[in-house]
């Protein structure tokens, strides 16, 4: 199979053989793919500086079996490079995608969300609320979505004034006291904010803890390495 001019981002690149790179790419129509960029690490490669994360590319590759062979990579636009905290968040998101998306499993919605997120990170927008919405949508897209429309059991709407224990398999269970819950409680107000995407400063922390716990739950034994970088 020969693919031409497909919108893509490099999620990760690692040295492969003497002068090549093994790339994990997020593509719009083909999902995450693994591809070898032959000779990309040699001094005269035209790809040498281009195959870096967070740069919108148009790529071509030949796919035979598990790994593709890169045939082309053009930079579509130059975004200001990610810096500081935005860069760390970008690396976190790349790890998230590598862990949650299987190779050659198309998720065009995730691609669009990622494209927008990279643009926002590059423009220096406020990062944390964007990350929560991205995590919410990614989990939804891979079939692990949160239940944010109603309480666990489905009979009552989420109440902004109630506190909940959020359980990954059943949803938000009302709790009167923190002592009744095995996990930090999260307010109905914050869960509703996560649903609408209108997250304010006072809800940041509980939502960050909630998403971190759910991601850890879904990833099982091997937690995200980039969580260590965020302390």
């Amino acid at each position, binding site marked *: 199979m020969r693919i031409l001019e497909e919108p893509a981002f490099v999620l*990760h690149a*690692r040295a492969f053989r*003497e*002068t090549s790179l093994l790339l994990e790419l997020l593509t719009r129509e083909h999902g995450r793919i693994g591809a070898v960029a032959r000779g990309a690490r040699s001094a005269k490669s035209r790809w040498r*500086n*281009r195959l*870096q*994360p*967070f*740069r919108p590319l148009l790529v071509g590759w030949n796919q035979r079996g598990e790994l593709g062979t890169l045939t082309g990579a053009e*930079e579509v636009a*130059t975004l*200001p*490079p*990610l*810096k*500081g*905290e935005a*860069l*760390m968040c*970008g*690396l*976190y998101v*790349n*790890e998230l995608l*590598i862990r949650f998306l299987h190779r050659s499993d198309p998720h065009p919605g995730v691609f669009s969300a990622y494209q927008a997120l990279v643009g926002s990170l590059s423009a220096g927008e406020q990062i944390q609320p964007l990350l929560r919405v991205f995590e919410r949508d990614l989990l939804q897209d891979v079939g692990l979505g949160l239940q944010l429309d109603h309480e666990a059991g489905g009979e009552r709407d989420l109440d902004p004034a109630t506190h909940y224990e959020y359980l990954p398999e059943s949803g938000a269970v009302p709790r009167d006291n923190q002592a009744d819950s095995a996990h930090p409680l999260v307010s109905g107000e914050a869960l509703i904010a996560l649903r609408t995407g209108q997250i304010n400063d006072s809800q940041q922390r509980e939502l960050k803890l909630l998403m971190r716990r759910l991601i850890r739950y879904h990833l099982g034994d091997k937690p*995200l*390495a*980039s969580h*260590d*970088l965020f302390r």
Partner: protein
Amino acid sequence: MNEEPLLEQLIEALRCLPGVGPKSAQRMAFHVLERDRDSARHLSTVLSKACDVIGHCADCRNFTELERCRICASASRDSSQLCVVESPSDVIAIERATGYRGKYFVLLGRLSPIDGIGPAELGLDQLKARLAEGEVSELIIATNPTVEGEATAYYLQEMASQQEIPVTRIAHGVPLGGELEYIDQSTLAMAFSSRQSLSR
């Protein structure tokens, strides 16, 4: 059944060298056996000795066969400047090209969470302790301008500013003798955004 196990083993062993595929390994093996057995014996002695004796400098992590490397042990190097690089070859490059008289810290890698390389793997605890000793008054970051090199730089910058140590970063941009029209977009964007004032 394999009739020549040693020959096979030799060819296979040579393939651990960078850039050596099966064909080149076979060529090398036949070359030393046909006409250069003495050099090969010498290589094998030196190789084995180097693997036993060469370790890492206690101060900068660079390769050395002593407790401290030549640069760290030198009284004429300035301990108030510390330049952080990714690899031993970066030390050699800076030593050749510049008149830098400070010291180094060699990370032997760069932050790459996906590959399991975090602060601990890069000896950053050791670097932190070094900064806390108070002798360093300028931390010069010379990691590569790749995404992972930048992430490493950011981490180092945070670490140094927690201890209120001034941080500088080597400049990146247009190569000398290069022409703007042939430079890739990202390099030019980087050079443009880190422009310097020329007015006095």
